[in-house]
């Protein structure tokens, strides 16, 4: 694979292009072309397709798309392009997994295949959702660390430090990033999991400075750092700086991308192609150990609508069938904690990901945008479902997911916000309320009625 320095060189020497032209003339035009060329069609009646040729066509479309479009650098207004041979070599040399965590919590994240009997990696937590205080942060992270069979933490993001609002780019953001790591490590220790890996380094940090600063206060080379893309197919110096730093210190990079259904990708077909293409960017530019995608709806801000489950399933199958690069999908529900809808969304999304060849990260509830609207109970449920659907056939999963969609899809544009953490959990003891426990149990029973078997 070409070196990262060579990649950076192309940020300085690649073809000049305005961002608007890149968005509309490159991304939009090419995605439409490849969707047409490869005959990719979305079927709303089949959220989890079993058609291997569809997945393979999406992969071929993604390779062609990325070869033609590349990755845009807004800071230099140039495009980093890679030819077909370079992409082939990158696929050959891509990571096939990585060991995350320390001691008893060390485990290897590996690639899976559709319908695989290999259990998925289950990352649990908040997907960066905001919390109001350091006290709530510590309590909820302890709760996440207490989830059985969880493999890693996706921590919440702090919004205050010592009561002061964190503002991106300011010294408070630096303090916030440091505090995030310090508190997360302590909270995991309190949960009895000192070696548990944090994989969304660093949740509170937006800038490269804050990410790098916070990393020195408790992040380990066995942890993971999420480096996101700018929609679509763009990486600025801020993000590339993080790659330069992390590849030098030996940190594990999760190539994070949230292609937007309804945006420059177009509909489900185009969004599936772009999601798959991001895997190539994650290998070559992010230098990632895995892809960390969350295709998301432009209006609803969640990843659980039927059209998005199709997008995720097809893209996951495309990558898992055609590469050895691990896939760790990330879930954003519309509904908030302690609502039936949130549990249904989680079950549908987890089932889709696992049978399509991915591992799972659960979850950003209430779209991860409402302060304190998160809880360990729904991720715990997500882990239960993930293990229960291992080895399920795509046809069977499709029927299950269709039934679940009927339970919630009509409310996606006006979902229940649910409860804040402090309303459904005791902050001090970390125990859920009786009501929340009962809801969890009831939803598990309902899933058993659908045929799932829980350990």
């Amino acid at each position, binding site marked *: 694979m070409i070196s990262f320095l060579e990649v950076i060189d192309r940020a300085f020497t690649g073809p000049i292009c305005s961002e608007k032209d890149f968005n*509309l003339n490159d*991304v939009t035009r090419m995605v439409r072309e490849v969707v047409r060329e490869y005959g990719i069609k979305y079927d709303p009646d089949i959220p989890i397709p079993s058609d291997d040729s569809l997945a393979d066509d999406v992969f071929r479309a993604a390779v062609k798309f990325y070869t033609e479009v590349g990755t845009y650098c807004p800071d230099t207004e140039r495009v980093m392009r890679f030819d077909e041979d370079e992409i082939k070599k990158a696929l050959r040399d891509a990571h096939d997994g990585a060991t995350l965590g320390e001691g008893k919590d060390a485990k290897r994240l590996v690639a899976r295949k559709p319908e695989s009997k290999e259990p998925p990696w289950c990352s649990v937590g908040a997907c960066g959702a905001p919390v109001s205080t350091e006290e709530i942060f510590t309590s909820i992270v302890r709760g996440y660390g207490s989830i059985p069979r969880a493999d890693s933490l996706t921590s919440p993001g702090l919004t205050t430090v010592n009561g002061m609002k964190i*503002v991106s780019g300011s010294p408070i953001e630096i303090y916030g990033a440091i505090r995030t790591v310090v508190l997360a490590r302590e909270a995991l220790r309190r949960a009895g999991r000192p070696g548990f890996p944090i994989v969304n380094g660093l949740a509170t940090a*937006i800038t490269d400075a804050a990410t790098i600063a916070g990393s020195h206060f408790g992040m380990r080379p066995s942890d993971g750092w999420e480096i996101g893309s700018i*929609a679509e197919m763009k990486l600025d110096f801020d993000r590339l700086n993080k790659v330069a730093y992390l590849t030098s210190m030996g940190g594990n990079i999760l190539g994070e991308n949230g292609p937007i259904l309804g945006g*420059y990708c*177009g509909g489900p077909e185009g969004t599936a192609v772009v999601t798959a293409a991001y895997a190539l960017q994650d290998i070559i530019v992010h230098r990632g150990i895995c892809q960390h995608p969350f295709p998301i709806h*432009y209006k609803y801000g969640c990843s659980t609508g039927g059209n998005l489950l199709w997008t995720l399933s097809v893209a996951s199958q495309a990558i898992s069938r055609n590469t050895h690069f691990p896939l760790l999908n990330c879930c954003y529900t519309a509904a908030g904690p302690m609502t039936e809808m949130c549990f249904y969304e989680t079950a549908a999304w987890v089932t889709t990901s696992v049978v399509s060849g991915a591992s799972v990260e659960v979850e950003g509830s209430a779209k991860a945008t409402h302060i304190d609207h998160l809880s360990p109970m729904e991720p715990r449920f997500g882990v239960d479902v993930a293990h229960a659907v291992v080895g399920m056939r795509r046809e069977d999963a499709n029927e299950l997911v269709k039934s679940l969609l009927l339970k919630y899809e009509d409310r996606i544009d006006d979902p229940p916000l649910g409860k804040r953490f402090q309303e459904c959990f005791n902050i001090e003891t970390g125990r859920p309320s009786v009501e929340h426990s009962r809801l969890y149990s009831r939803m598990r029973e309902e899933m058993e009625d659908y045929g799932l078997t829980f350990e």
Partner: protein
Amino acid sequence: MSVEALCERLKEAVINCDAESAKETAEEILKSDINPIDVIERYLAPAMKTVGDRFERMEYYLSDLMLAADAMRTATEILTSRLAKGLREEMTLKRLGTVVIGTVKGDIHDIGKNLVATLLEVNGFEVHDLGKDVLPTKFIDKAEEVKADIVALSALMTNTVPNQAEVIAFMRERGLRDKYKIIVGGAVTSQRWSDEIGADGWAPDAYSAVTLAKRVIGK
């Protein structure tokens, strides 16, 4: 081809997001003596309404909206190029209002903002898009320059949304707060946030932003 047929072709070009065809057809139409304002009102405006309706039904997406708006803009510039100054000013006055929009300092997310900007434009607003990572003073300076009615602030992240409040604080400092209507939006915003920082309104999505913009200026 008759002028009416050319106008229908222009309408189709906009609906089909074809700026090249829109340009050629507009140049053809210009050779006739039809009133350009009639063409805009009877063909281009309904074309964008069709585009907007298709977007609402998710038959069209953001890129279609932007390409259609480009096609309409191209056609409008050509059609109005020979209008007398007075008639062009009359057209400007017919605009619903003037909006300055951008994503606040520290935030580089712009797809939602681009969507709002495009929908405001196709719904009759004059829009000045400052892009992303915009300093408070830039919003204010532009609003003063173009005599804006509305300043629209977008932010996607919890740690950048405080900069929406900063814009309002800067306006108050300069004694300009009452001169503009401020509307806010973005994934982490809410009506409560809007009330907390003293904005004039909050929109949960792009279509609501258009309704909100009309409402805050009394249209």
